[in-house]
């Protein structure tokens, strides 16, 4: 993945999470994965198109999702209902949108698709042939992983 793309995603993930959730945030080391990787349980996919093609996958466990949705809504949610799902989808949308805005300022033009949420146990994501950058963020509510898989349009 082009190095120019990395920082916008890392920064926007950090900014958005800090702004809407708050608390102590620490970023884990970035690393690369090839094709297939397991996901934690609640997964939001935002597609990217334009100069590049790819997707951003934001991934967390259900407990983490519930805790974050509770903070964002200002009320304690007891189960992961439609409100929770909409909240987490919106979070993914905010992170990706802010990254895309930053990228636009650098001269890269991306479009995004509406977020799609997938929930379940023992899920795996395959991005055939596209290497994925993993940005792990540790929060008081738990761990969030932001997976960015982008390739240049050939």
């Amino acid at each position, binding site marked *: 993945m082009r*190095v120019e793309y990395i920082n916008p995603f890392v920064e926007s993930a950090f900014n958005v999470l800090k702004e809407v959730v708050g608390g102590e945030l620490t970023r884990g080391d970035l690393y*690369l994965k090839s094709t297939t990787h397991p996901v934690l349980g609640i997964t939001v996919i935002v597609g990217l198109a334009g100069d590049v093609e790819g997707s951003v996958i934001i991934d967390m466990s259900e407990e983490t999702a519930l805790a974050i949705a509770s903070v964002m809504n200002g009320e304690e949610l007891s189960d992961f209902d439609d409100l929770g799902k909409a909240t987490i989808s919106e979070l993914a949308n905010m992170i990706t949108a802010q990254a895309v805005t930053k990228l636009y300022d650098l001269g890269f033009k991306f479009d995004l698709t509406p977020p799609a949420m997938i929930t379940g146990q023992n899920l795996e994501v395959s991005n055939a042939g596209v290497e994925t950058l993993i940005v792990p963020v540790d929060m008081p509510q738990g761990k969030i992983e932001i997976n960015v898989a982008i390739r240049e349009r050939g």
Partner: protein
Amino acid sequence: MDTAVNQTVLEEAGDLQQKIDFKMVTFRLGGKDYGIDIMKVKEILKGNKFTFVPNTLPYVAGVYNLRGDIIPIIDLRKMFYLPGDVKKHKAQEEVIILRLADDLILGIIVDSISKVQGIVSDTIQPPHPLFGDINIKYIAGVVEYEKHLFIILDVERIFSETAESFEQIQPTGEKEKKGIIKKAAAREADYNFVVETLRTFKSFYVSDLNRKWVENRFKEWRTFREDENKPIQLADPEDAGQYLEKYFSPYTNMLWGADYKENLLKLMPDPPEGMFNVWNPGCGRGFESYSIASIARIKYPESPFKIWSSDNDLLSISAAPNLQLDRNEIPDYFFKAQLIVEQDKGCKFIDAIKANIIYEYHDLTHNNELPKLDMIIARDILSFFDLSLQDHLLTDFREHLKDGGILILGINEEISGHGWYRLEQGNIIAYKKDKT
């Protein structure tokens, strides 16, 4: 008639089934058939990602995570000095997981697992002293079944032996030879130790690619260390670093000098039709890529070109797109060709150069997605991948190159084999992809 025959077959089968009282898992090893008592076999599996454990016996292939239990994997071919099957890259090894007394679980790699064979225990014969390949005390017996001779291994005995008695497994002839060539062996042991420690400390893998250099360097190193009154063996990463310091090509981690530029200019083909694509894996902080881009600009002032650069070190590669340079580390030709501009904070490459380089944070062992390439410049990186990956990457390089494309490796790296035509241009070693 038919019924009569069937009748006999059935009867025979029935007879045999009644008597079958020993089942064994059969497998092939070095071209022969072997069996292991099925009661000792926990399961079988295929795998290839065994985690290497340093400083173990040579036949320990590594450890494997079997659903959370870490178990040792033994390469039976190496243990018994049998000729091994050469497995292709990423080929799955066939592994038999054994459960021995005291719940000791371990895996053994064999050439191929055949099947489970039921036999009559009375037909098992004691091993004959002439069975040379494997020390007789590890053989529980021999049995013939359907014209195949199976050697039944006594796995309890093999693996209850402690590591110290490993010597005994070696064929006897091997030991005698050892006495005679003890001194040579000691030197070889030192060499082998160096090879091992280069891998452990620097993940530098000795292969055909670099063996010549490593061996020559070893001679030099021995004299050097003896003069210094230090042990020949590499004790820590610093030693290994010192051993390797002469390995790297000219102008590593700096802009390429004028002599190197002239040589590369001669290796570059005439202006191609369309885009001139160069792949530069392992570009580090980008000195190499900027040099290549600048030389390409000098060679092809009119034609478009693109340098695809990547590295798996995030810190280095992140610095590459905005590399700042000191006036005194830049050879003159960069200024002459007006490729670098001087600013208050230091010197920078002009945008026309930068725009032609794509820097990617990328792991070479993953899928390499690139257009057809005119040139690959991969200096001093292959040696830092294990042997199967070296092979895999060379194949990958070949697939990505156009016919007649040029591959440039490090000065101390060489590839043999057909399909590559070696070119030497001063201090650059290059290989041209043959059309065949």
